[in-house]
């Protein structure tokens, strides 16, 4: 197999209102590349389209959403061309995802073991007994104490941190190639957050996973990721290697984000430091969507949306300041 593990090209997903009158460009012309074993951080404020992008990769969008253009090449084949059945066999088996809310992600009526064993039984046709013993191993792998008793318990008997570990165990149960984690730590408290991030990193290393880490927390990205992609109003405004971008951010939005990182420790702080509100995704401003809040606004930004400029080797930026003429 040649080429990257996951290659997203010009992907756009829109929400269309019931009458078809309002179109929200939740994901707009996004291109990204991810290699095996790498970690990609997707950063942005809420409503910037991060979660929609993740759900688009798995083709699990709400009925109002339409994937209008683009390609998602996974191991060389376009996911958007797969049948529903093929897609289903990829979900959970080849590409797995961890949802935001661990409290709500587990079904309250089934035991932990049943829920961890379920994908193994469905995807690999394993017997009940085999799947259960695999589930037990997985619980050990995510460092759950006394897995033999936990496996028979119901979600409400476990703490939030434990539940999130179990959701992690479910995600890696079929040895996927790509793991998408959508703000997996927002509802956990700080010490548990740190433990969970460490667990994710260890799992990634042990299983050689490609990890897509969705967050609004740049501090976590710095610790976790190799690559970072910054989203604003459905578009990728800046992307590249973490070190490069942290040292020399090209886009004013990235710059503002980096300035708003709290200095010491407190990784829970939300990105509220930038003046103004994120735009209404169904009615973004003309030109560059960031211009109403941009400290370096130019006339051109009000009318023309900037294309993607190559700033450095692997670093791109959608800002007129990065245009070759002005540099």
């Amino acid at each position, binding site marked *: 197999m040649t080429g990257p593990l996951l290659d997203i090209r010009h992907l756009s997903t829109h929400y269309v209102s019931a009458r078809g009158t309002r179109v929200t460009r939740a994901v707009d012309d996004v291109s990204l590349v991810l290699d095996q074993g790498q970690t990609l951080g997707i950063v942005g404020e809420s409503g910037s389209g991060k979660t929609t992008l993740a759900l688009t990769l798995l083709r699990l969008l*709400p*009925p*109002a959403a339409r994937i209008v253009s683009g390609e998602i090449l996974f191991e060389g084949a376009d996911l958007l061309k797969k049948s529903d059945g093929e897609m289903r066999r990829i979900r959970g088996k080849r590409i797995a995802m961890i949802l935001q809310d661990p409290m709500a992600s587990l079904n309250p009526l089934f035991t932990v073991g049943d829920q961890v064993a379920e994908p193994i039984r469905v995807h690999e046709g394993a017997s009940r007994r085999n799947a259960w013993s695999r589930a037990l191993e997985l619980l050990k792998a995510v460092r759950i104490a006394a897995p033999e008793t936990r496996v028979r318990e119901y979600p409400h008997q476990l703490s939030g941190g434990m539940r999130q570990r179990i959701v992690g165990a479910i995600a890696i149960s079929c040895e996927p190639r790509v793991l998408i984690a959508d703000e997996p730590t927002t509802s956990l408290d700080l010490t548990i957050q740190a433990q969970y991030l460490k667990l994710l990193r260890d799992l990634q290393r042990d299983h050689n996973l490609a990890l897509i880490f969705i967050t609004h927390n740049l501090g976590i990205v710095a610790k976790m990721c190799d690559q970072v992609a910054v989203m604003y109003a459905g578009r990728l405004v800046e992307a590249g290697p973490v070190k490069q971008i942290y040292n020399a951010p090209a886009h004013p939005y990235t710059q503002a984000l980096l300035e708003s990182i709290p200095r010491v420790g407190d990784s829970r702080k939300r990105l509220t430091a930038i003046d103004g509100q994120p735009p209404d995704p169904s009615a973004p401003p003309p030109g560059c969507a960031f211009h109403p809040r941009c400290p370096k606004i130019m006339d051109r930004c009000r009318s023309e949306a900037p294309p993607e400029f190559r700033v450095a080797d692997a670093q791109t930026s959608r800002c007129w300041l990065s245009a070759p003429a002005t540099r």
Partner: protein
Amino acid sequence: MNGSAASSRSASAILTLPRRLAAFRTEGFPLIPIAILMTVMLVALFANVIAPHNPEVGVLGDRFRPPAWQASGTIDHLLGTDHLGRDVLSRLIFGARISVIVGLTVVIVAGCLGTALGIISGYLGRWVDQIIMRITDAWLALPVLTFAIFLAAIVGPSVSNIIVILAAVYWTRYARITRGEVLSVRERDFVRLAVVAGCSKWTIMRRHILPNVINSAIVLATLQLGQAIIAEATLSFLGVGVPPPQPAWGLMLADGKKGLMAGYWWLTVLPGSCIMLMVLSANLLGDWLRVKFDPQLRQL
């Protein structure tokens, strides 16, 4: 019906929201239901002008005559006659009057009483709230229909008694829902401002709280109009509602049962269809209003 629909958990909106929006589109303006309700009201208002015969007096020689389009029917009795030879069409027309009067009055009386108690309970709080809500809960726990029958049996049948009975049974839901809304409205800025400005409690409840909770009361009233009409028909059918020989639809069905086994279908089908049309219209209008006023009023 008892209102204890089990509480359903609210879920994340990502999947349900667009679906709910889609459901909204199909629920257009209920033109036909409104037209039917208006027609019934007009018929009720001008019953004595429209009706071809006296609804309470029949000619025994003309008993059980079928509608005009059947073999032995006559043009004189367009929709046939009943077991006493009374004209069915005229009885249906005057029956509309009773259904409209009972339905509207019950809903208005129960609505005013329940809303007032709900506002007082929610705004004053503390022991007033405790007492009113305990009574409401106990009342809600009663089997509505059986209780109405009990009341009707001890006070005796008459139109005004039915109104009092049904209003006494139906006020609780308004109290419940209004109280819940008052609790949130009470905390809003304009109410606090009014308190600071020195308005009296009664003024605040009347001028500031009532207008904010009236919408739900109206929706509930529309939805309950149908229930009240069915309840009246049921009581009349059982002989504890509108006393004979008055022409109530429920009473007509009770009389119609006498000709049922002989196949005199019009005595059963026609009055029931009138009830169904009116209740159906009220329900459709109520559903529409509910979505229109506030999609979150799903628990009504």
